[in-house]
């Protein structure tokens, strides 16, 4: 028997749904006109500190950025020590894999002045600068950070995005410079060699992190990455463009250059000191080079975002990691540049080899050749990033 009402056909349903969706779309688009600005101010977005009553802390960090026990990887000696000493329970999460992705993860909450559920997060300079610019980061109380005040490396003070060192405290630092695999190619000394030497054609990678690659290129042109003009940036970018067009540069990478360099698929690259130190332990033919024109110094910084409710606990943690003895234990595991003065002396007790490694404890000569990329405003950031992305292909 035929159904007494109009039967529901696939086509009918489809067109009905599409029609309704289209109408909703038009109406909704009109209703939801644009987005609100993400800019926050200290007065507009106040955060309560419940540290007095809640002895806990949520800490977001990058993978393999914390010392673990040699026998039991689930134990983190320095962090456990902090918990024991302070009585503050730390929830440690390794959920930062990429600055941009992490930004995408927290931006909606922070733009709306809501809690991200994190008390401390570790992000690279430029992302820290962006978040500070947007007013998303809480100011720390310097009186509670005596170790930081005493022990932060001089070259990491006075950074343009945080001149008083009370918004972003370096967790670990590192250099962006040149690296090569001596099994595949002979020594490389300068950025220009990397970009033009014919035997390296197609066997070179550069970092997709604009500040690192462009900072090195600016320096190779004799310009200062901490203070440059648009014309100087364009000059450096043209140099990069030529190297891409001549197929000298094979691709732009994040951390993924490391296995390719070890395999010899790429002979030389722009890379990070920490990766290269670790590769060097396995294969001494992998070498890091500080180019004569200068090298980029970057840091990953501990930030306390707005609406994090345990600021005082976070300050206790930050200060704890600026105790030279603690910093040395951490540096012995992660092999990046230790931002804590005095840790080198402590490292002598743990591992004298590491203490004399200039890529963990750089000497004055090296630090004097290192630069921190200038803080960009929103317009510059978009302009430079767009130009750079066009050259690197996206």
């Amino acid at each position, binding site marked *: 028997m*035929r*159904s*007494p*009402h109009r039967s*529901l056909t696939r086509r009918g*349903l*489809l067109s009905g*749904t599409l029609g309704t*969706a289209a109408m*909703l*779309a038009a109406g*909704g*688009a009109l209703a*939801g*006109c*644009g*987005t*609100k*600005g*993400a*800019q926050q101010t200290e007065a507009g977005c106040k955060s309560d500190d419940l540290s007095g009553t809640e002895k806990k802390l949520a800490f977001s960090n990058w993978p393999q950025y914390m010392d673990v026990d040699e026998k039991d990887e689930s134990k983190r000696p320095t962090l456990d020590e902090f918990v024991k000493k302070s009585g503050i329970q730390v929830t440690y999460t390794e959920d930062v894999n990429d600055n*941009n*992705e992490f*930004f*995408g993860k927290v*931006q909606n909450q922070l*733009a709306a002045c809501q809690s991200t559920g994190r008390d401390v997060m570790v992000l690279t300079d430029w992302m820290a600068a962006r978040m500070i*610019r*947007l007013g998303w980061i809480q100011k720390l109380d310097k009186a509670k950070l005596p170790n930081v005040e005493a022990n932060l490396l001089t070259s990491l003070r006075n950074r343009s995005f945080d001149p008083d060192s009370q918004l972003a405290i370096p967790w670990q630092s590192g250099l962006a410079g040149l690296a090569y695999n001596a099994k595949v190619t002979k020594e490389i000394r300068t950025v220009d060699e990397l970009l033009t030497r014919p035997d390296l054609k*197609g066997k070179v990678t550069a970092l997709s992190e604009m500040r690192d690659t462009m900072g090195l290129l600016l320096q190779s042109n004799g310009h200062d990455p901490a203070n440059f003009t648009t014309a100087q940036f364009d000059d450096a970018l043209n140099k990069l463009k030529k190297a*891409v067009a001549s*197929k000298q*540069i*094979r*691709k*732009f990478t994040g951390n*993924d250059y490391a296995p390719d360099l070890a*395999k*010899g*698929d790429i002979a030389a690259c722009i890379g990070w000191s920490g990766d290269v130190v670790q590769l060097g332990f396995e294969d001494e033919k992998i070498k890091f080079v500080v180019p004569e024109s200068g090298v980029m110094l970057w840091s990953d910084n501990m930030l306390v975002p707005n609406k994090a409710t345990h600021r005082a606990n976070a300050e206790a943690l930050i200060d704890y990691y600026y105790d030279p003895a603690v910093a040395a234990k951490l540096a012995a595991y992660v092999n990046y540049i230790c931002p804590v003065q005095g840790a080198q002396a402590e490292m002598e007790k743990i591992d004298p080899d590491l203490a004399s490694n200039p890529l963990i404890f750089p000497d004055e000569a090296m630090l004097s050749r290192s630069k921190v990329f200038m803080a960009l405003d*929103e*317009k510059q950031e*978009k302009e430079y*990033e*767009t130009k750079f*992305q066009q*050259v*690197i*292909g*996206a």
Partner: protein
Amino acid sequence: MSALAHVPAASGQSSAPPPPPRRGRHRLLPYLLLLPGAAWLFVFFALPLLQLAAASLYDPAGSLSTGYALTWAFGNYPDAVQAYWPQFARSFLYSAIALVLALLMGYPLAYAIAQKAGRWKNLLLVCVVAPMFTSFLVRTLAWKTILSDNGWVVGLLRDVHLLGPDGRLLATPIAVVLGITYNFLPFLVLPLYASLERLDPRLLEAASDLYASGWQAFRRITLPLSMPGLIAGTLLFFIPATGDYINAELLGTPNEYMIGNVIDSAFLVRLDYPQGAALSFLLMAAILAIVFGYLRKAGTEEVL
């Protein structure tokens, strides 16, 4: 309406009409059954799509800190095309080449599994599906190792002089197209297999009884009968392959970047939301146009 009028007349005076609540429930039942799916689609597909449509018309001068105003900036679309048409063209080119390669490999494979494999059928099917048990990313990374400059594949190709002494596969368009072909092949093979499996061998016997050559039998019987699977398979292959960016990212260089890479960078790196949204919509529109054109030409109702 005529049916509705007919019902009470037919039941006559003898019996009472059926109780109305039951009929009401019956009428609503299909909609109730659709409700969970429709709600899901609405919240996770229609609403985000709407948001994306609005974002594509934001004022391009807006920024994260000041916010974006909806100014119906239709100019975002031509601007995006002008800036990134090469990546668009490349996306369609690569996925089309990969589709042809996949058809050349996938059709015989599906046919063999469906018709000739005998007791090996299930094992072969598992072989096709098994790689899907691992992550897409892991599979693509494995290709990086396979095609490595110092790997045996490149070594062999150099030895037989198909590649020059300095030749390489990684970081070339070849690697990207091969990666796409490999990664999406199962999406093509499985629907094809489903169609070919139902193919009645007696039809082919009849064809040969009627003096059809092998090729004629294939063209007049096998191919038409496998059309639904072929169409579903090509669509399932082509649509994700065109939007893919992992293969270009891992196996290619900036010169091989596809439109997916550009959209990824627009949203995550450059924070140019209007342009990213406009590019996403253009990609969707282009794919829809191709799909509808294809379906019209192929003339099937089986897929939609």
